[in-house]
């Protein structure tokens, strides 16, 4: 199981990768992750790779991801080539406009980007920022998205293992909020799954 998590520096992608990787370990599997840490964190593109199973190297090959978990619209689109043909993308619709766009050096056309993702992958779009804020903080986007992946039933993980991993990796102070966010994400995709029978 290979999961690519993508977003912009500061959004919490690393914590999401930790939570998922540890959940696989709880279920008795080996897991590894690969992260972007350092200069690219300052508002740059960040990608975390989570690999459960017997892969040796930390990075998922292009065309190898079972799931793309995207914290930001354009970053999701940028990494579509990493998905397997039958892989799924869960994309947060929130956009973070880069300074290069504000300076007029590059276009950020949300409509076009959304269309590209839809045409090139099995994608589900959710407003994870909104769901996170409703649960108490925009910082809970990571647990909303993990919940969404769980609700879609594509992780090969039980809900209990994920909750156990969230409890281990998130500070007690923020735990209730994040458990709530996890359930909110799970409910959203669970309902979508019912409605459109995407899987």
């Amino acid at each position, binding site marked *: 199981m290979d999961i690519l998590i993508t977003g912009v520096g500061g959004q919490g992608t690393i914590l999401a990768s930790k939570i998922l990787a540890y959940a696989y370990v709880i279920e008795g599997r080996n897991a590894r992750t690969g992260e972007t840490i350092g200069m690219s964190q300052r508002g740059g593109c960040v990608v975390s790779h989570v690999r459960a199973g017997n892969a040796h190297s930390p990075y998922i090959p292009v065309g190898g991801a079972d799931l793309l978990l995207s914290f930001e619209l354009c970053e999701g689109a940028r990494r579509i080539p990493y998905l397997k043909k039958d892989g799924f993308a869960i994309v947060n619709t929130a956009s973070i406009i880069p300074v290069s766009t*504000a300076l007029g050096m590059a276009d950020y056309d949300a409509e076009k980007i959304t269309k590209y993702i839809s045409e090139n992958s099995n994608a589900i779009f959710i407003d994870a920022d909104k769901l996170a804020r409703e649960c108490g903080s925009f910082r809970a986007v990571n647990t909303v998205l993990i919940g969404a992946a769980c609700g879609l039933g594509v992780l090969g993980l039980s809900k209990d293992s994920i909750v156990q991993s969230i409890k281990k990796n998130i500070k007690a102070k923020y735990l209730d909020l994040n458990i709530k966010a996890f359930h909110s994400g799970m409910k959203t995709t669970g309902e979508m799954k019912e409605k459109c029978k995407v899987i």
Partner: protein
Amino acid sequence: MTANEKINDITRRVNDLKEILLGNTAIALGAVVAGVRVAAGYPGTPSTEVLESVAKYNTDGKISVEWSTNEKAALEVAAGASWSGVRAIVTMKQVGLNVASDPLMSLGVIGTKGGMVIVVADDPGPISSQTEQDTRHFGKFANIPVLDPSSPEEAYEMTKYAFELSEKLHLPIILRPTTKVCHSSGTIEVDTEVYQYEPEGFVKEPKWVIFPPLSYRRHLEIEQQQKEISALFSRLPFNRIEGNGRIGIATGGAAYAIVRDIVESYELDVTILKSGAVFPPPDQLYSEFLQRVEKVLVLEELDPVIEEQLYHIMAVRKIEKPIRGKLNGFVSPAGELRFENTLKIIEKFIGRKLKNIENESGMVFPQRPPVLCAGCPHRASFYAVKKAMRGKKSVFCGDIGCYTLGNGKPLEMTDTCLCMGAGITVAQGIKKAEPDTNVFAFIGDSTFFASGMTGLANAVYNGTKINVIVLDNSTTAMTGHQPHPGIGRTMMNTSSPKIDIFSVAKSLGAEFVEKVNPFEFDLAVKTVREASEKKGVSVVIFEAPCAALVKPDNVCAVEDCTGCKKCIREIGCPALTVRDRKVEINRALCNGCGLCTNVCDRIIRL
């Protein structure tokens, strides 16, 4: 909780399951269970988390952990500890070893007593470094054994072994992880026992004083010892031959993991030579490998070290096998190895296609170069100097830290960057060559202590009029907010005397020294102008805490924006965004610093 109990706790926490550990944390825990007592280092990506994790797992306080002022200081502290019989670890990034190369070279001659491990993280790519240098060369240069882990799991095992090996050989050991090992995590079962020992203490002996006759004698011994280590390394499990194919792939470090993934995915019939204890080279094992295969592809990141070792052994043992690698242009000399480019090289080598990789989306997405954070005081400092010097012939020398990003649009306030501390001294060279130019040197607070002070002394001593701007945000921000000598707190959270940059600059003899908050914008501009007009060396210290460490108490807003976008063109803050041709302030990002209110009257602080 003692270190033992803590480690027990880590492994027990979830039904005796294994842990997911970052490579750097695995190295730290390897050192903790090996009984490390002194740990020192200087922050630098991708090495920083090693020392931070040693501090984190130093639960019984038995380990002395410190951020030293620079890598040279750290290595010397560790050497002294080792000479006193305790196990010591020192951590840095690859360019840090350049700074510490003076003690390293001599330590290779004098040797060690308590196990000493020098962790030096290399950065193929490079992803966040100045150079793509290869630390394995330093091993050869200094006659110090080098271990090169291929995964976090192996890094953990190698760290423990390195302490034993160091004590056996009386030499320091270089552990050389690369970014893909440091910043990836693996599933590791942490040992529950910490190695126990009673250090002998420092024993006065002539062997700790380096003199020419001693160096000569040691040189003879060390060269003999290299042969013994090579024989040992040929039997070490970190070095091994896997598979039975007639086609050979020699690899090591993170590249080994990629090669294994490809070989397993496509069931390739090859023989892999995995080099983990890479210097001195395991000659016997290399020669067995060469005998078994018809031709060899060498896949390694950075320099062709394994490749040159193979050529060497072929020459010595009169073996002739075709080798493809970096030396004959088969593999690119620069950049990271990833699954995709490694697969292409293997396809070319075996002469058949294994997979079609479609990495082209046909879409062009906006780039996201790293930028100074919203509310970053460096933006205000750069903008103040830019405004003060507008229309005057000026050169702005930069240095290493977040503020290297001052190079980007729209500030464009970093004209040079060479290495740690070089801004101040490069500025002096430019001033000597171009006396009519106003030359500025920007340097961060941590960098000032690491290697800025000698440069400032040089300017004063030699009477070179430069303008030094210290960007003092009270932390080492770029690497994740480590403390430094100017803060009054150590990494173990004890208080320490606060070394005051203002007093240091004064006592080093700078003619003009002034402290100012860059967000008091008009005063900041005026101070810079005044500094530039002085005859002697000037130092302006811009003091304001790193934006990532302070919570905003207000935010800014735009009222009736005309859409001229001057604010974005002037300061390029990431919180300034455009919607329907008008500038809006992203409240989730805005730090309320108010720098933009100095650019446009329509922006106000709420």
